[in-house]
């Protein structure tokens, strides 16, 4: 039988199933169930759990554990994830696999403890210093919180790059029935790991390269990985898209609301559909470009002031109009609000140069 649990708890069950060896974290609302559950689940399996003295310590513990070849993760919420950015840049530069969960709350600053989606830029555009990206997965259900953890660890290992699980407070706090099915785990050998085993060549983990030739080579190698990742790993789902005039573009909780909006709109005979990016990096630019080419308009819905909306505009590239509806402060938009906005958009002429961004 399915089990009722929170998204936060599902992340833990998913991590255990994915063979996570070590968890390092520090409490913050609304992700506290993650360290709480891991504090008993990990020792029960003979694995490592450390409540670090700070978020900065936690991410550097992840850095060390990942360097030794372990499947390592941390989790936090927005302000805490900001503190981890230096470490994430180092991990990306050292080409190490790791997983970081961000159960986003409302920002900026310490903000509030209710849900938000204002960390999109931070997650998908790098976040820390230098040219790197986090492969970013955006679950919209408790089931996906479980399912995507194995995917996150696999992608991290495959591309030797940190992976972000980007949730929001609603996905983390809501309970749904999920199937804790066994997951397939693809765990490659890690000859590069500084694990103490005898090697022909010394395993060196480093993110400091004072020789500009070596550093530029590193940047080229990392960018080539991201191009390969974009080709192979871009994921999205579509709902009532084929015949739609207007596609709502949303992820996480906003996409859950958008799904209800589509159902309500269809009952009124309105041709509205939904496009949900599942990987936020790599972003599904190509598919959105096709939809723009086919004449569909976009209304981006986010619990932010319009962040993913900029990527949708890049994809549309002037071929169709991109409008935006957002709520902040911890509010989740209601289906009625979004449907009103959608009707207003559909009643106005499609002009790629005119945007109505509404907060």
């Amino acid at each position, binding site marked *: 039988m399915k089990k*009722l649990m929170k998204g936060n708890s599902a992340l833990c069950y998913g991590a255990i199933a994915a063979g996570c060896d070590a968890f390092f974290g520090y409490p913050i609302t609304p992700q506290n169930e993650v360290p709480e559950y891991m504090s008993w689940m990990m020792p029960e399996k003979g694995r490592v759990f450390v409540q670090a003295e700070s978020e900065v310590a936690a991410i550097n513990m992840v850095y060390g554990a990942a360097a030794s070849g372990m499947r390592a993760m941390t989790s936090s919420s927005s302000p805490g994830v900001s503190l981890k950015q230096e470490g994430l840049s180092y991990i990306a530069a050292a080409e190490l696999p790791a997983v970081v969960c961000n159960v986003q709350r409302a920002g900026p600053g310490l903000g509030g403890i*209710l849900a938000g989606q204002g960390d999109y830029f931070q997650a998908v555009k790098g976040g820390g210093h230098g040219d790197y990206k986090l492969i970013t997965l955006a679950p919209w259900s408790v089931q996906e919180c479980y399912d995507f953890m194995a995917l996150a660890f696999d992608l991290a290992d495959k591309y030797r790059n940190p992976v972000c699980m980007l949730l929001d407070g*609603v996905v983390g706090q*809501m*309970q*749904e*029935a999920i199937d804790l099915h066994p997951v397939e785990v693809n765990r490659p050998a890690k000859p590069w790991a500084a694990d103490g085993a005898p090697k022909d060549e010394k395993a060196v983990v480093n993110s400091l390269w004072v020789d500009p030739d070596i550093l530029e080579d590193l940047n080229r190698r990392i960018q080539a990985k991201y191009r390969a990742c974009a080709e192979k790993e871009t994921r999205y789902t579509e709902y009532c898209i084929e015949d739609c005039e207007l596609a709502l573009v949303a992820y996480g909780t906003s996409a859950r609301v958008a799904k*209800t909006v589509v159902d309500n709109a269809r009952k009124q005979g309105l041709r509205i559909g939904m496009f949900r990016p599942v990987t936020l990096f790599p972003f599904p630019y190509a598919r959105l470009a096709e939809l723009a080419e086919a004449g569909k308009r976009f209304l981006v819905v986010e619990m932010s002031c319009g962040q993913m909306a900029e990527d949708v505009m890049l994809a549309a590239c002037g071929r169709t109009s991109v409008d935006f509806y957002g709520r902040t402060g911890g509010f*989740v938009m209601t289906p*009625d609000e979004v449907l009103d906005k959608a009707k207003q958009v559909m009643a106005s002429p499609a002009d790629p140069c005119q945007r109505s961004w509404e907060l």
Partner: protein
Amino acid sequence: MYAEAIFAGMGGQGSLLAAQILAHAGVYENRNVVWYPAYGPETRGGTAACTLIISDEQIGAPIASHPEILVAFNQRMLDAYIDKVKPGGIVIYNSDLAAAPQRKDVKAYAVPANTIAMEAGNMRSQNMAMVGAYTRVTGIVDASSVKWAMENHFPEKAKKAIPVNMEALRKGYDAAG
């Protein structure tokens, strides 16, 4: 079948647990279920509300903005949520702590939850009286599934209180008939 409900009370009245027991009953019946607490900085003595959605279809928005069902544990929460209930909706209220709602376009069910809980033997079982009333009035989940949920998903520290709560559940069910 798709039913959105808001359960609302003061911290300590057990409104969140009430909805959670029903959520487990929904899972037991292989339904899609969402339980989402209106979590905030307030806890004991503050307000405690949550969304409960039970559906045969995939559930979209996880937060009820215009529920079909309101289960209000006191006057303050009845006042806070009564205007959100859909016309033709169901309002189940604790008649020991709230007066009948003024709205004429909803079906209101009075449940003397405190009295029932005292008779059952523990004041804290008032939430299960409300669960009993929800089960009877809505018919969304079967009473046997609710009993199963109580037996299998009651908080560990409250296991010995199950017989008292089962009694409150039965009396709440009867009161809403």
